């Protein structure tokens, strides 16, 4: 049934007018493969990177600078039995084994002047909020925004691209697919809808998250050195369009405008090969979500530092990409987080008596992602991805535990314990692999299947939630149809 629906959606895509292509393709008149490696959105070819770094200004301005994108999906989690409420309202597996039209995006932008261009994405999530009475409410808000000015100076001895970007997400400006803002961007529907698909598994991320406001400036010299420096602040006041659609509770609040982002990379092309090795980072002075920002005790600090590398071999009909990204994230919690109601002070160890260790003031996580993909004729492709998140153990992150009241031994009966997503160990370790095969029947439709297998989840292989759920129970099959117009 689900597969039938997905195939019929794909067929629907095929019947679209073949000359109608998304925004940038209309601007340049080129096929998707010119800018996207093997047609894999959003990974860029060397030409696609130049298109982006020169401010989306190549080509000619189009009359209606709009395009749309949609994702239809289906998922099946390996074991849905170990849950108190698998399928009811607010259930753990509400959308499991149910084909859904997950998300849709509208894009606005492209060439504005000879030096200014934009990439503005607005996204609607049909399953954004699970309603208490059952069912879902849709929600839309600003997604990626990158408005930039760029110039390119060429002389016999120098090829310099210079640019400035106003954007809402550190690294959204980056032209390599190992950047935090882009590596995750396989067709990920409504992250809230499926908790164990590859898109919801650990990815290296920046500190501040998205929907903030920042300006960054960059240079790319002689196709060898890329350097970018920017700083971010809360997207309010004049910058509020960058977080449009988000209410106060969901807006990221940063302290001041001293939240820097940096990026440095070296690149080289030879024959059909190209490689990038780089580093990036972000420091965010960030208020706890939905708290009073006049209270300094709600202020925490997250520092992210990463290294990444990407290799591509692009020679028709073959496209091979190898990606490696590692991010170390150091979180210093706010005073109120450490001392407030969020600390799980009521848990005890499994003996039912011994109190858990005190909360740590800070945590460090290390997230590694490696991915190898191959595409034939920009049509048939597959990938293999490995993810491994490790980090310090902290009772602050323990969301399941043992309660001494009314319970003893190994009986768990604390009401605040969480099945399925709970963390009994206080350790974030999550590890696994994702296998993917996809088919791109026409350049703006992609049909794919992913299988994500976990060997560790929330710090343990077995019984990670304290209710007997094992990491492998979260293994997930995921089908998607992605289309753009």
């Amino acid at each position, binding site marked *: 049934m689900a597969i039938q629906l997905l195939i019929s959606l794909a067929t629907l895509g095929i019947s679209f007018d073949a000359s109608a292509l998304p925004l940038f393709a209309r601007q340049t008149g080129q096929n998707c493969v010119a800018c996207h490696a093997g047609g894999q959105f959003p990974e860029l070819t060397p030409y696609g990177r130049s298109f982006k770094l020169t401010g989306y200004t190549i080509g000619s301005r189009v009359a209606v600078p709009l395009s749309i994108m949609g994702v239809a999906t289906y998922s099946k989690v390996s074991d849905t039995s170990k849950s108190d409420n698998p399928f009811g309202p607010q259930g753990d597996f509400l959308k499991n084994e149910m084909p859904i039209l997950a998300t849709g995006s509208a894009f606005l932008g492209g060439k504005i002047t*000879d030096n200014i261009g934009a990439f503005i994405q607005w996204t609607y999530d049909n399953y954004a909020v699970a309603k208490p009475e059952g069912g879902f409410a849709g929600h839309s808000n600003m997604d990626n925004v990158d408005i930039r000015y760029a110039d390119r*100076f060429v002389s016999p001895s120098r090829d310099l691209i210079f640019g400035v970007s106003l954007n809402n997400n550190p690294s959204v400006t980056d032209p390599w697919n190992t950047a935090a803002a882009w590596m995750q961007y396989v067709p990920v529907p409504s992250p809230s809808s499926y908790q164990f698909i590859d898109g919801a598994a650990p990815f290296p991320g920046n500190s501040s998250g998205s929907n903030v406001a920042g300006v960054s400036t960059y240079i790319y010299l002689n196709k060898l050195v890329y350097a970018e420096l920017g700083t971010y602040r809360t997207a309010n006041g004049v910058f509020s369009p960058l977080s449009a659609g988000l209410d106060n509770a969901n807006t990221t609040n940063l302290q001041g405008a001293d939240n820097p982002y940096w990026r440095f990379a070296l690149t080289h092309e030879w024959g059909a090969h190209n490689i990038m090795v780089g580093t990036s980072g972000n420091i965010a002075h960030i208020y706890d979500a939905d708290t009073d920002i006049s209270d300094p005790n709600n202020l925490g600090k997250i520092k992210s530092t990463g290294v990444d590398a990407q290799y591509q071999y692009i*020679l028709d009909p073959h496209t091979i990409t190898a990606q490696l990204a590692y991010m170390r994230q150091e979180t210093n919690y706010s005073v109120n987080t450490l001392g407030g109601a969020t600390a799980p002070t009521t848990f005890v160890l499994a003996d039912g008596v011994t109190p858990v260790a005190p909360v740590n003031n800070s945590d460090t996580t290390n997230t590694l992602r490696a991915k190898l993909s191959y595409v034939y004729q920009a049509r048939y492709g597959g990938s293999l991805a490995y993810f491994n998140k490790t980090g310090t153990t902290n009772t602050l992150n323990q969301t399941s535990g043992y309660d001494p009241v009314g319970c003893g031994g190994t009986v768990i009966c604390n009401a605040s314990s969480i099945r399925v997503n709970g963390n009994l160990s206080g350790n974030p370790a999550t590890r696994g692999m994702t296998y993917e095969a996809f088919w791109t029947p026409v350049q703006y439709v992609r049909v794919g299947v992913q299988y994500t297998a976990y060997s560790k989840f929330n710090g343990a292989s077995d019984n990670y939630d304290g209710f007997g759920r094992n990491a492998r129970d979260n293994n997930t099959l995921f089908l998607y149809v992605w289309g753009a117009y």
Partner: protein
Amino acid sequence: MKKIVLTLVAGLVAAGSGCSSIERSRDLANPDVPPAVTAVQVCSICHGIDGNSVSPNFPRLAGQQPGYIVSQLTNFRGQQRSDPAGFEYMWGLSRHLADDQINGLADYFSKQAATPNAPVDAKLMAAGKEIYENGLPAKEAPPCIACHGPKAEGLANFPRLANQHQDYMIKQLQVFKRTDQRPNTPMTQVAHLMSPEEMEAVTGYLQSFPIEK
């Protein structure tokens, strides 16, 4: 800090409206953009600033015959050349180019100096040289040298082949042999006479063609 950000934003807007220069434009629909500007701002991304492309996905244009460049750009613009390399990349880029711009682009790239390309092994070179200079008599395939010249430099509408990427030339020979995507060329007949091994040899020789100082 807020002032700095606002100044940068204001600067961005001002720069876009005031300092935009046609001398560094990437607009492909403006007939006033000089061809040399389009060559370095757009074409160079794939074909190289000096026309010596790095990736074999994209043909080298350095030293190419201007007449050949004009004919190909005109065919891309008119969608008469429909091989994948043509329609995927070049139809769109060429669709609004004016005749003067096409002539100017041909002038720019034809005046660039070709640089040596990657070498191939000596045995392949020898086999390729034999085919290039003498053709395939048993199959009555004419020698390449007859049209493409003793230095493989081409003539008028016959393209320069010296130092061209081997992979690109093989793919084009296959286009000539298997499709009608590049019509009205004697290469259709010639390519039909060539085996894959012969294509590999002669294109290997041409990729490594010795450049005379």
